[in-house]
């Protein structure tokens, strides 16, 4: 087992997910299997192959530095659970 229940708790906390005690064991096993599957890649000879970060053969996709957007605040705040004075209102953040 590479993934322990502690790892599951840690990753869940980072991702702000609640994983119940009962689920933890199951999630650990699932993650372990996923890692095992990916491990098969280590069997390949990758000498001289450059690391790849993107699957599509694209590069240098740019936009010109032009302002195209206007004030859309009303629209933007429509889904906000709470708003005040044109701002999103959220629970108090720690100083």
């Amino acid at each position: 087992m590479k993934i322990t229940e502690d790892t599951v708790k840690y990753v869940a906390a980072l991702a702000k997910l609640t994983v119940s005690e009962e689920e933890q064991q199951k999630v650990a096993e699932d993650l372990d299997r996923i890692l095992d599957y990916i491990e098969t890649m280590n069997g390949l000879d990758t000498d001289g192959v450059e690391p790849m970060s993107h699957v599509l053969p694209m590069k240098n996709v740019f936009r010109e530095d032009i302002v195209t957007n206007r004030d859309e605040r009303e629209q933007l705040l429509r889904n906000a659970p709470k708003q005040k004075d044109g701002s999103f209102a959220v629970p108090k953040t720690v100083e």
Partner: protein
Amino acid sequence: MKAYETVIGLEVHVELATKSKIFCGCTTQFGGDPNTHVCPVCSGMPGTLPVLNKQVVEFAMAAGLALNCSITQKCKFDRKNYFYPDLPKAYQISQLYLPICRDGGIEIETEAGKKTVRIHEIHMEEDAGKLVHDPWEDCTLVDYNRCGVPLIEIVSEPDMRSAEEVIAYLEKLRLILQYLGVSDCKMQEGSLRADINLSVREVGVPEFGTRTEMKNMNSFKAIGRAIEGERKRQIELLEDGGKVIQETRRWDDNKDTSFAMRSKEDAQDYRYFPEPDLPPIEISDEWLQAVRAHQPELRDEKMLRYEKEFGIPEYDALIITGSKQLADLFEKTVALCQKPKEVSNWLMVETMRLLKEQEMDPEEITFTPAQLAGLIKLVDGNKINRTVAKEVFEKVFKENVDPEAYVEKHGLGLVSDDGVLRSAIRQVIENNPQSVRDYMGGKSRAMGFLVGQAMKEMKGKADPGMVNQIVKEMLDAM
């Protein structure tokens, strides 16, 4: 007490002077009502995709070249994950693995001579939104106007040893970036802010001590005091047998002390991974060469040119090029009036005096090159005398008046009307027969007295050259 050495490295965040944000077409203009410079992309709405602003890459390259870095020709963005309301996507698009610039450095002047501060890397990233605490409802208000404004983060090596060195480094950095046009570097608007990593160690010990980080310092004065305060705190801690804890501290400039920020329950773990929404960047040799070829003149070159081309003394050139605002003002005014020495004098003497008196930075100057050139033309054409010129300049400086119109309106111009002058001088000669006799008797000094009286009669507003000439002419004709 043992002797300690302070070791400081800086992470400097600079907002780039692009018109639009890094990944969307929203304006980067400072200010504006909350959330009026925001779109679905920079507010992190699901289903939106970022598209990189090409100017950001070019500005980052320009900064890297000017700071003697090597440019990473194959680079990409990475995703830095954390939850905080200033970041609506719950991740910041940044660069970790392949920052656009690496291994640079700049030379600073210290008391002990020149010293190089090495630059570890420069990476591109997006700025976050602004959080304001609302005391009425005890909640936090979020404004995303700054969210997505392009930043470069310039990371130095821990090469600085004192507050003076840090400030010298920051000033040099600021000037280079301003001359490049990469950023306005207005610290009061947060477009240049520094995180200070500081540790102390006993002199002679090769290992670094444990460091603390003070974030988002945005004035040179506060930076100086924060370094001094944190250095003292760490030394006192060690002297008392304690240990420095690696943590982020917040400098409170009013209380003149730093506080540990409440550490989050978890260690910081940003789980960086390659940003899937942005294809990689490949900077061709041609592109790099084009950016290199367009690098503007920086301070050292400018200073030399001012001395050579305009005959400006080295010290004056140093002061004028010490601010991009002053240098621009100088060059534009010279282009209008072709009097480099006069322009330099107005900047070096009266402008400096008024800046000091008003406790202003050169960046806050509001008068235009046309106004200064206009004033210089008035003096040069003997339309006003030096004393009046200083008065008018003060008005130009403080109220941006048009010098010609102001002189006209307040009747400050020198009288050069021949008839008016002649009648005033005739009166003076009639009223001072003794001086006329003295002059006739060979006392040439008597003429000076008559000229003085004539100037007095004209309340100083006569062209002294003309008065002199007319007095002599009239006396000689007697």
